[in-house]
């Protein structure tokens, strides 16, 4: 054990790994702060380059990007009222109001501190929970894994806020796309329409990069063309409120203390939701925001620039970042799009996420844990020093950024498999992504469906083989039954919570 820790320490604190983590954080904050570019997109684009790096350096880079973008998203949320990432949507509510009320600095610092506290706590919980959970996971067979896959897909679909039917449809589409290629039980080709190019299935990288990055780029290009056609000039809103007095807008101890309760609430809620396979950062942020409002001493201030609101939302979304790895590390099931991307990166390093991963790759996994922790510190320092600069970054014109990202996406996808077919799949996935956005279909569930699909199918068919084709075999395991009932209870709880909130807001309107 101790020798592993020493080895992990040496891996994590090698100079090049630290440099890569720093580069990742700067990159992450940058892409997070630019509306339209997200951390997931940056990780997807960087994924193919994981090959050429040493595992620890690659993990440092990806962790940096992830953490940086988590906070970066709140910069544009507070400064311009535009969430830089989906997770920062709840930050906009109070963050932008606080800025308009002449407290941008306090709001940004509150966001930064609560982000870092939420993130670090969640990382620690990951470190202490993943190993025991992985031991439990060793008792899991096909029946139990099938139950886990089912809840993860159910939660993804059901928690797609306000569009359950579309969430279910998107997840189902993802599962279907994953079935193209070879039958996992017999190796026979299926759904390939006789095209040999499809016999190996659709690659994870072309699909992820296509769905997340290419579709976003196409949409943004379309928007730019449209704007030009209508000759609309976009004017940037006034940067500062008229009576802004910087001397009154300094982060101080009483302010920090007043938001600490909300930060803790957000941390707890974010960690819990992040650990559920299928629920993401934006849900966590909104749930923590709602909870903090209900438990706050000054609930009336929420929505009008309450720093507590900023703290709860930011702690909530950042606290998912460690917890989201719990199902990935313990069961090999990615709980979010980001976890799926990290899962893909680990597979490329020939580390298979799952119950045996920790035991077989002790050193590199503990190195990852070290990186997760110290990256928070770097994030804190880098963000604190560079906050003024980054507030302006959100103004970078997308027309300079988009071509670079497009080029990187195509190059990276080609490099990942040395195949032009992968590039065609990438472009096809991009067009599919645009179509889905057009119809308002959420992309997250689709990607999760695609990633979870093979495991879902395989565990179901394995379970049936072991149970001699008796479907009741699926509910004969007490563990699996527990998982099904737990999911049902959770769904009920979420339903009650969200329902109550709606009632509250209606009363407030009256």
């Amino acid at each position, binding site marked *: 054990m101790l020798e592993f820790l020493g080895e992990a320490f040496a891996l994590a604190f090698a100079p090049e790994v630290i440099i890569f983590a720093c580069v990742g954080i700067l990159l992450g904050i940058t892409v997070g702060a630019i509306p339209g570019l997200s951390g997931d997109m940056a990780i997807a684009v960087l994924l193919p380059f994981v090959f050429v790096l040493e595992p620890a350096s690659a993990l440092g880079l990806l962790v940096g990007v992830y953490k940086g973008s988590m906070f970066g998203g709140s910069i544009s949320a507070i400064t311009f009222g535009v969430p830089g990432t989906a997770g920062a949507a709840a930050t906009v509510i109070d963050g932008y109001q606080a800025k308009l009320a002449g407290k941008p600095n306090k709001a940004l610092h509150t966001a930064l501190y609560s982000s870092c506290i939420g993130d670090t706590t969640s990382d620690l919980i990951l470190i202490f929970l993943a190993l025991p959970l992985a031991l439990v996971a060793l008792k899991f067979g096909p029946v139990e894994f099938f139950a886990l896959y089912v809840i993860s897909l159910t939660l993804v679909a059901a928690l797609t806020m306000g569009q359950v039917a579309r969430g279910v449809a998107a997840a189902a589409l993802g599962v279907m796309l994953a079935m193209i290629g*070879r039958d*996992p039980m017999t190796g026979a080709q299926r759904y390939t329409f006789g095209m040999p190019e499809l016999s*190996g299935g659709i690659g994870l990288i072309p699909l992820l990069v296509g769905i997340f990055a290419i579709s976003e780029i196409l949409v943004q290009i379309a928007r730019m063309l449209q704007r030009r056609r209508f000759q609309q000039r976009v004017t940037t809103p006034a940067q500062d409120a008229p009576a802004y007095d910087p001397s009154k807008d300094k982060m101080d101890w009483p302010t920090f203390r007043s938001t600490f309760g909300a930060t803790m609430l957000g941390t707890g809620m974010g960690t819990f939701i992040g650990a559920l396979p299928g629920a993401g950062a934006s849900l966590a942020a909104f749930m923590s925001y709602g909870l903090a409002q209900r438990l706050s001493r000054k609930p009336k201030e929420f929505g009008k620039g309450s720093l507590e609101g900023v703290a709860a939302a930011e702690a909530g979304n950042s606290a998912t970042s460690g917890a989201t790895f719990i199902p990935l590390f313990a069961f090999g099931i990615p709980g979010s799009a980001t976890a799926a991307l990290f899962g893909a990166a680990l597979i490329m390093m020939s580390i298979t996420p799952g119950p*045996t991963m920790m035991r077989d790759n002790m050193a590199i996994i503990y190195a990852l844990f070290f990186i997760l922790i110290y990256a928070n510190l770097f994030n804190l320092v880098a963000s604190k020093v560079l906050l003024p600069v980054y507030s302006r970054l959100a103004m970078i014109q997308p027309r300079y950024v988009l071509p670079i990202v497009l080029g990187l996406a195509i190059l990276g996808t080609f490099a990942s498999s040395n195949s032009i077919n992968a590039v065609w799949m990438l472009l096809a996935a991009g067009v599919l992504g645009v179509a889905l956005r057009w119809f308002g279909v959420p992309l997250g569930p689709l990607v999760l469906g695609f990633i979870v699909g093979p495991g879902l199918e395989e565990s179901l068919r394995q379970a049936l*083989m*072991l149970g001699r084709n008796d479907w009741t075999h699926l509910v004969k395991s007490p563990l699996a039954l527990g998982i099904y009932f737990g999911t049902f209870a959770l769904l009920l709880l979420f339903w009650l919570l969200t329902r109550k909130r709606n009632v509250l807001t209606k009363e407030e309107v009256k």
Partner: protein
Amino acid sequence: MTLRKLALACAVTATSLTAAGGALAEFPSESPIRLVSPYGAGGAVDIAGRILSSVSGEFLDTRVDVISLSGAGGQEAIEYVRDAEPDGYTMLITDYGPLVTTALREDVGYELDDWIPIVQITEVAPIFFARADSAFTSIEALIEAAQAAPDTISVGHGRHLSVPHLPLILLEQEAEFSTVHLPTTGGAQALAFVLGGQVDVGASVPSTIQGSVDDGTLVALAVATAERVSSMPDVPTLLELGFDVVMPAWYTIFAHRDVPEERRAILEERIMAALESESAQALGQRTGTDVQPLGAEASMTAYQTTIGNLTAILDQLVD
């Protein structure tokens, strides 16, 4: 299409003839050698190729690049090598899965005798294992129980028709018993299911189970190779136990048969020397690859045996 292919073939033959005539003396120093793998980077075949790549400078007078083309289930790699100029600078590195199994089951763009082995880098032993506290601590116990109650004992074995699955099929034919064959995503999952008691017996390769055998949780029942495995000398072969099941996998470098024989001979000699070197052996140790290079002739025998075994098994399955 056919015309274009014909023209291409003519052009290729013409250039290769002139190239072979003109610059034979310098071969293989003119350009880097490409080893094309049908698997993704980081896998076992890829690692075997990279071992050669890292010692190539000294023994081959040129660089060896490992290129992975995993598209279309590995067929992209094979087609790439088939379509490359047959000058010996582009070769295939693979196990039998994409090259032989796929060719026997599906329409592919090559014949099996289009490929000539240059060097077999390593032999991989399929191995059967079970939990030490289970009822199946020997192959005989397993067979007896399976004969008493057919199709009740489950064996997790990696993908359908994968390296550990084929010996299981052969053994069942040989010893006349039947079990439930449970395909898994690979050795890691088969191992997890056996450890968790979900599956009675597992089939994988030694490196997957080494740790659990060393700490006493698992027992290795038998290996399906001609000789015992050096990393687990106590484990008997199926042959010793009286079952004629020898079905090892190999990672072998192939050249297309149009590559001139002189060049193939040079490549064989140089690659053998490179893999036998101390540095290659050390790299093999570090990456868990048992580098035991075999020359062209021995590799050809292994290749032909595998084709024969696979054809027999697949014919049986179709019936």
